[in-house]
């Protein structure tokens, strides 16, 4: 254990090695370690966020499902109501139509009856006039007695 100049040489080597580590070894590795720590922290945060999002989505989908069911039930109810209404309306329309047809037919019948009566009256009056003519062949002036004939026609 003698002391000699090795001490100073070792001192210089010591600082050169420390300088080298400080310059070329330490910074890149520490940087990588910090980066990795940040990556892991980010990953964990993302996972947490994903979990939260999933929870929200589940809640939203349940909500949507419930809403959809409600809406469908409402639609069905409305449709049923509407169908009943349509049937009711159709019934009314059909009845009205039927009434109208019946009324039409009645009117036509009446008209027909009136016309037939008129015709009949015409024919009867003609027949009567003809009969009367035959009876009173010479005496009767159709023009002069037209009003009488009309009155008779009326009464028939």
């Amino acid at each position: 254990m003698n002391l000699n100049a090795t001490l100073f040489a070792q001192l210089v080597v010591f600082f050169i090695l420390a300088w080298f580590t400080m310059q070329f070894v330490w910074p890149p590795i520490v940087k990588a370690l910090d980066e990795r720590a940040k990556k892991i922290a980010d990953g964990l945060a993302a996972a947490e966020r994903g979990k939260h999002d999933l929870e929200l989505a589940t809640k939203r989908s349940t909500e949507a499902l419930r809403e959809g069911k409600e809406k469908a039930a409402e639609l069905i109810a409305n449709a049923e109501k509407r169908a009943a209404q349509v049937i009711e309306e159709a019934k009314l329309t059909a009845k009205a139509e039927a009434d109208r047809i019946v009324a039409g037919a009645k009117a036509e019948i009446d008209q027909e009856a009136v016309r037939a009566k008129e015709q009949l009256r015409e024919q009867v009056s003609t027949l009567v006039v003809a009969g009367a003519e035959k009876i009173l062949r010479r005496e009767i002036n159709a023009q002069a007695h037209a009003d009488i004939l009309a009155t008779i026609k009326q009464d028939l």
Partner: protein
Amino acid sequence: MEETLIMSTAGHEAAANAPTAGEYIVHHLTHWNSTGHAQKNVIDFSVINLDTMIFSVLMGVIGLFVMWRVAKSVTSGVPGRMQAAVEIVLEMVNDQAKGIVHSAESRKFVGPLALTVFIWIFLMNSMDFLPLDLLPSIWQTITGDHHAYLRVVPSADLNGTLGMSVGVLLVCLYYNVKIKGFGGWVHELFTAPFGSHPLLYPINFAMQMIEFLAKTVSHGMRLFGNMYAGELVFMLIALMGAAWSASATGVSLFVGHILAGSIWAIFHILIVALQAFIFMMLTLVYVGQAHEAH
């Protein structure tokens, strides 16, 4: 010194006789230095230990090269095994640094410094795991000198460990001045720990000087002592195996070598890692103290 004399005389006889236990250990504890022979004086700054320099620089370069390779291809995605391993060490050092040095600005230098210290000392200490005579014998074969010195554990050289602890001291002084300002630091030198009173100034200053000296010396000595002692125990164990023979004592020595060698090597794994960790932690603590105003 006396040992060198013994060594040189032993050198002549080496071809015929194996070295004695004392010779073996002294030889293994002598550095290959710039003079080519063992250092004569306890302190001689004209000498430099080549083996310590070569192996410590080699360990530093290997350690940093591996980490640099990882740092170059580092990804913030899924890491490979090598990257994960480096990340574990770096994260460990960074966590300790965050707990002790509270200034993020200082940590930009102190963090890498602590990481370098940990990796470097760990690798230097790990040189102890190589078979004791492996590299020295290879070296002796290469040089052709059967008495060439070579010590392969740079942290078992006081110069190596004190060099690092003095480096830590310089960093501490730098941060003392940077954080507190030169005036503030000088003020602290004279007023802490006992308080601000003219009579207490010299005592405070003396305490501070002793503190700096004690910190630095104990910092370097602790690592050195552990590794030196560890190396020495490996040498003693190696001597057991070296003394084996066909007799009952010889065989039991051989078995003892295997047993003790295994136990000590396994225990040494703990010491290698622990001492590297302790040196790193003390580096952080001392630098952290430099940030605190008394």
